[in-house]
């Protein structure tokens, strides 16, 4: 695989993440797979790259005090355990010869639901004016969650809830990181806001903070159990990403945020459609070989 192509991919995804303020892992992995990199290597390497982007994102949030270390700590406990379970599922699927299928299928489900959600939200928000919501504890905590045991105080987020909730959210994040090679911010942040009741700004910072540890654990396990972390590939993606995101940040100042979101939604839907097409249309070659 030529290094230039990988660099361009990193730069493109970096550009997009600069424009839209997303991690971009959910775009890098499918593109690596489109380019012919084995899904196992794509996911393992992507987990490694996410450590870098999580780290760079967290430093900024940490300086501004937007990280709830206590909730983050709970989440990363669940996240590390989730990574372990995810890697086991990954290995099982690989052994069964279903990993390509499973990764594509999960991406189709995830990307199409995010894409549709973003698109409808952007279209509606351009018609109606945004209602102003108070940032803190805007939602009432679900009675089921309120009844869970092991309650703890989280002073930074002004919450008093069961520790099981952040642990479970982190656990789901860990599974996503190790099977799909994504930080899962787009899923974790809404979960932290709506289920935990965290303020948005703290949710973003804390999610990034725990992503560092979850993806680090996923990287370690992919490296030791599967040998699927390619540091050269990862470094090229990181460097490409840094350069791309600089252009992206500048570009983001020029376009309207809502337009940017519509473009991103369409892009996500296009990637999802491409993956779905490959699953639905009869392949030219039904047989494939693999060295055991």
């Amino acid at each position, binding site marked *: 695989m030529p290094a230039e192509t990988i660099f361009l991919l990193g730069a493109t995804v970096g550009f997009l993440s600069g424009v839209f303020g997303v991690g971009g892992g959910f775009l890098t992995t499918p593109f690596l797979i489109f380019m012919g990199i084995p899904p196992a290597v794509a996911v393992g390497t992507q987990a*490694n*790259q996410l*450590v*870098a*982007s*999580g*780290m*760079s*994102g*967290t*430093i*900024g949030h940490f300086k501004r005090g937007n990280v709830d270390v206590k909730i983050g700590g709970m989440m990363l406990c669940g996240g590390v355990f989730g990574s372990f379970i995810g890697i086991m599922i990954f290995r099982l699927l690989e052994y069964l*010869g*279903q990993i390509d*299928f499973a990764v594509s*299928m999960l991406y189709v489900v995830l990307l199409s639901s995010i894409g549709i959600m973003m698109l409808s939200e952007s279209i509606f928000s351009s018609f109606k004016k945004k209602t102003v919501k108070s940032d803190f504890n805007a939602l009432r905590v679900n009675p089921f969650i309120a009844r869970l045991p092991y309650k703890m105080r989280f002073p930074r987020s002004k919450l008093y809830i069961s520790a099981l909730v952040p642990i479970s959210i982190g656990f789901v994040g860990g599974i996503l990181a190790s099977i799909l090679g994504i930080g899962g911010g787009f899923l974790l942040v809404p979960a932290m806001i709506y289920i935990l009741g965290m303020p948005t700004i703290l949710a973003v910072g804390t999610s990034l903070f725990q992503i*560092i540890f979850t993806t*680090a654990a996923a*990287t*370690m*396990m*992919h*490296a*030791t159990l599967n*040998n699927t*972390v390619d*540091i*050269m590939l*990862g*470094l090229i993606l*990181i460097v490409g990403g*840094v350069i791309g995101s*600089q252009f992206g940040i500048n570009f983001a100042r020029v376009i309207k945020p809502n337009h940017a979101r519509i473009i991103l939604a369409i892009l996500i839907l296009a990637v999802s459609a491409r993956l779905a097409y490959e*699953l*639905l*249309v*009869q*392949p030219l*070659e*039904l*047989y*494939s*070989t*693999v*060295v*055991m």
Partner: protein
Amino acid sequence: MGRINIISIGILCFALVLLVSGYAMAQKNLTIDLASDHVDITTGFNGANLHLFGVKERPGDVAVVIRGPEKEMTVRKKNRMLGVWMNTEYMSFDDVPAYYDYAISKQFGFNDAEEIMLRDNGVGLSTLVFEPRDAVPDRERVRSFQEALIRNKQMQHLFPLEAKGIEFLSNNFFRTTMYLPANVPTGEYVIETLLFRAGKLIDRSATNLTVAPVGLNAQIYEFATQRSFYYGLICVFIAVFAGWAINVIRNQ
């Protein structure tokens, strides 16, 4: 007296036979050499030509066969399940060479004896028939998987579509060139050269070729597989450092 004579003539004859056969053994009918006995997979490796030279001392045709290390391969077949295409059938084959290619000085007009001799010595696509590891009664199904294995290997340029030619630079001096693609599997390769005439094998000669990663890539690969825990730690450390560096660059 007569008896001693017979014995001494016998000994003489025996010595002569030894001498002649010894001479014949020392004088090879076939000598081959590779331009290089190793192929280095470097970072930018994009495939390599492999030149083989040879001299034959006796008239006849020449065949060259190159084989990569043997591996266990699994062939999977996709079927439509609930509207999507997924792998549902598989068959495993033992001892499939990771790479196979061959060249032959005579491209057509083989007689039966020659064809049998070539097949017995592993020359040609028809010798690439692998039996599934687990006995499968349905021969038709086995055949479709066997064919799919060859077809997939051919698409990856690891098995040939047809025989390559052998170029004669003089009556006895020949040369052939094989191409190892960018995705060539690493390992020990064996290159065998056969000299045959009228359906009979006259001589054979083999040489080895090492296909191995070299340089930085090789060192990283070795470290990643031998000391995977430390490799993982270093990967995480590099990423953490890179993340920090990105932040420093951004703030300036």
